């Protein structure tokens, strides 16, 4: 498989919507650049006491290649610090790769996280308005979407109450509702959006995401392997910034769980309340 064309399941050659070629991302850690340090260096030609540590570098992604066809749903799994979030940031275009190239055709939805930009002193409705505006929608679309969001979130009379008075379940539901309704672009980036509410809302959310999968290209980052297996027909496993596996969910999730030392039939402990998934069956 080259990065320029993909043979889809049906055998049709399709230009990829998302192309990631040879991408590495390095973050600079260590002492930040400070006026105090610059002055000290200029005058005394040495570091001021206490900040002698050298800058270090964190390789968040190393040589990752990836191509996604239109309509594909990609699950991204891996332990904390594997580079999942960095991958989403690169796809969303909020940061640039240190090496390599990222290309995304069409409109990318922002990298969606729950409750992003919500202000505690604004009401639920006001927050939904703001969220839609943040996603770049125009005024008339916003009005329509806000109604969908508040009815989907099932927050009842609380729409006009300050967000800080919400229960944590209501906050999570409104966050999820906004995330899935505020006009996702043709490429959807979702980060851990299903960590919400009770079992009933989880099922509802999963169904909504399944619908979205059918009409957009999606990159779905989650520790909830049950949801990944249900939504995605392709999964990648990131480990220490490297692409460790890429394939159908049953294989990749199985290999991941074996490597984690978790019995294959158990869902990981941080998954929301749901029956343990059998990835082999769900894939």
């Amino acid at each position: 498989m080259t990065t320029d064309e993909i043979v889809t399941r049906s055998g049709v050659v399709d230009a990829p919507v998302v192309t990631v070629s040879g991408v590495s991302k390095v973050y600079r850690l260590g002492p930040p650049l400070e006026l105090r340090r610059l002055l000290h260096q200029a005058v005394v030609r040495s570091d001021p006491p206490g900040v002698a540590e050298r800058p270090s570098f964190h390789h968040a992604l190393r040589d990752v290649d990836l191509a996604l066809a239109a309509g594909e749903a990609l699950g991204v799994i891996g332990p904390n610090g594997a580079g999942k979030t960095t991958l989403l940031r690169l796809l969303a275009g909020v940061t640039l790769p240190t090496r390599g190239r990222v290309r995304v055709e069409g409109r990318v939805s922002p990298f969606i996280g729950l409750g992003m930009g919500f202000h505690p002193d604004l009401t639920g409705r006001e927050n939904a308005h703001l969220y839609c505006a943040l996603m770049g929608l125009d005024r008339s679309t916003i009005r329509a979407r806000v109604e969908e969001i508040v009815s989907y979130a099932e927050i009842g009379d609380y729409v006009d109450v300050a967000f800080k008075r919400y229960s944590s379940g209501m906050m999570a539901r409104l966050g999820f509702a906004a995330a899935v309704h505020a006009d996702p672009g043709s490429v959807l980036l979702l980060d851990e959006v299903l960590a919400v509410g009770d079992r009933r809302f989880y099922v509802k959310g999963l169904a909504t995401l399944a619908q979205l999968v059918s009409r957009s290209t999606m990159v779905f980052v989650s520790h909830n392997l049950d949801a990944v297996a249900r939504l995605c027909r392709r999964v990648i496993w990131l480990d220490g910034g490297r692409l460790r596996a890429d394939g159908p969910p049953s294989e990749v999730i199985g290999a991941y769980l074996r490597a984690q030392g978790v019995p294959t039939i158990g869902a990981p402990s941080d998954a929301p309340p749901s029956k343990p998934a059998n990835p082999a069956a769900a894939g």
Partner: protein
Amino acid sequence: MPQDHLRRAFRHRVFLGYWLRRNVLTRYRQTTLGPLWALLQPMLSGLVYAFVFAVVLRVQTHPVPYAVFVVTNLVLWTYSMRTILIGPAVLLAHLDLITRVQFPREFLPIGVWLESLVDLALGLAVVSLFFAYYRVPVTPYALGALVVFAIHSAWTLGVTFLVAAIAIRIRDLLQVIPVLLQLALYLAPVVYPLDLVPAALRRLYLLNPLGTIFAAYQETLLFGRFTLARELAVAAMISLLLLVGGYRLFKSAEWQLADLL
């Protein structure tokens, strides 16, 4: 390309409107004093300056009473100082948005600038009360203050972008800014009139765009004359350069915001 930046910014303009509403609403909902809070600060510092300069040092601002002089200047001063102080800091305060959504980053400092404009409008309402109470006449020259205001705004936004661009790289710059702004107050005719600056120094003094801007505000708003056209043209050029240069520098530095860890 700057044109691309501006085009993208225009496409996201709806967001700017909501963002401003959000910030103005929440600011006034949190405090019981509400909009009064924005006015209290220039009024209180005006009282202190009135004591020091009018009572102790006997500074004359004839024919305008010192109270009118200082309140007018401080309201205009607060407009740009608040923007420069908070505009860059607000970027660092919203890293959660910046690391996720690709919206024009300049909206955050511009949002602060718009808030300062709202404050300024309230402040000018109070200033007009001072004008009425002390029966200070408003002359046709006051229209010239609009030109001064445009230059002042360009300067303010330019400096805000410049400070933001540097603060993205150098973390503790923002701690030095309040001190620099406090010093800048004394290098422009804000709490004392231009007449008190020795004539020999005046040309040098007016090279500072802020010095010219405030001197021109006083002439047009308070004294009913306008003699600083040439100096103001220079200030306008410097301010425009600052605005264009600051914006471009900011746009080239903004990428590093998402990589701040």
